[in-house]
């Protein structure tokens, strides 16, 4: 064990190696390291921001959907209301129409009955005149006795 030239050589090699590390290694490794940590920080911030805006968008979508649903319900309500209205209207129209038809039919019936009654009365009057003529034995002048006959006819 002795101290010799190895000591000096080691000191020189050491100095060279430190210089080499200082010149070619250390800054080239630390530089990208710092840059990467900056990038990662930026990425994380961006991700957080993205998440936030996603949540905001989701809220907005929820609001829009809720509003749309409300409007749809409103429209459905409105449509139902309108349909009921239409049905009611149709019912009213139908019943009034039927009443009108019934009334017209009734009028017709009354008219027919009146006419039949008049006919009958006239025939009865004719028969009565004939019968009276036969009874009196002479012709009753229809013209001269028209007033009498009409009076008679109305009495039947």
């Amino acid at each position: 064990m002795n101290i010799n030239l190895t000591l000096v050589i080691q000191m020189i090699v050491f100095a060279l190696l430190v210089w080499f590390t200082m010149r070619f290694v250390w800054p080239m490794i630390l530089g990208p390291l710092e840059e990467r940590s900056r990038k990662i920080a930026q990425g994380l911030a961006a991700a957080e921001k993205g998440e936030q805006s996603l949540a905001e968008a989701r809220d907005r979508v929820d609001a829009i959907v809720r509003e749309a649903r409300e409007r749809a319900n409103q429209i459905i309500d409105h449509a139902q209301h309108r349909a009921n209205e239409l049905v009611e209207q149709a019912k009213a129209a139908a019943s009034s129409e039927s009443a009108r038809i019934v009334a017209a039919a009734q009028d017709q019936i009354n008219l027919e009955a009146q006419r039949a009654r008049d006919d009958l009365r006239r025939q009865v009057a004719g028969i009565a005149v004939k019968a009276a003529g036969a009874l009196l034995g002479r012709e009753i002048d229809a013209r001269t006795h028209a007033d009498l006959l009409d009076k008679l006819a109305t009495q039947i």
Partner: protein
Amino acid sequence: MTSEAPSSNEYIIHHLTFLTNQSPRGVLDFSTINLDSVFFSVLLAVVFGGLFYLAARRASAGVPTRFQNFVEWVVELVDAQVNDIFHAQSRLIGPLALTIFCWVFLFNALDVVPLDLLPGAAGASGIGHLRIVPSTDLNIVFGLSLTVFLLIIFYSIMMKGLVGFLAEFALHPLRIKGRPLVQTLVAPFNIVVELASFLARPVSLALRLYGNMFAGEMVFILIALITLSSGFAGLASLGGWVGTLGSLLLGVLWSVFDLFIGFLQAFIFAILTVVYLAGAAEHHD
């Protein structure tokens, strides 16, 4: 194992002898070089520099590859420690700590390479001695710590000026403000204490690492000694089996532990370097 097994003593000495260009003369001999230490030190410098240079060149702010991830993890580990300890601005301190941490860890990691593997291969190709763990070489660890020591002095003078640097020796640890006379009286005491603690830094830095790794290597040698004399022939008896399996188990356990120690010591070396330089860069008043 050769047929003629070496004695324990020879085996240990063999493993503690460096591959040198010549037999060293005396404790201090600057014409000798430990070729193995220099080789592995430079090799690991290339490994570290190459890997990290590759990662640095491919580094981008995009999605990192696994390799880049690993390199970045190491760099961030060191950077976090440096930022915790060292508050002045410096372009040197981070790379310095990273280099020390990785390089020393690679030194220490070589300790778990099977003890006789590389020296055995070297022996087969005619190289007599080989020690592959640079951090078990005093020259290597002192090479590191003395460079750090020079940096401490350089930083102190740069931040405080030569006068400020020298004045700190007289003004610490006992600082008596507003009493110049008393301060002058305690100055010699301050200088002795401060100088001792100042000079102890490179020594403790180097010897802490050296001691830990040398001890780790020593334990591997001792584990290897269990089966040294018997070799494969020991497998003929039950005791031989117990010894072989026991040394295997111990070897695995110690490898894990030693790797942990190697990591820890590399980390401590780097952190203490940063602490010392932070002390040098800061004004104490």
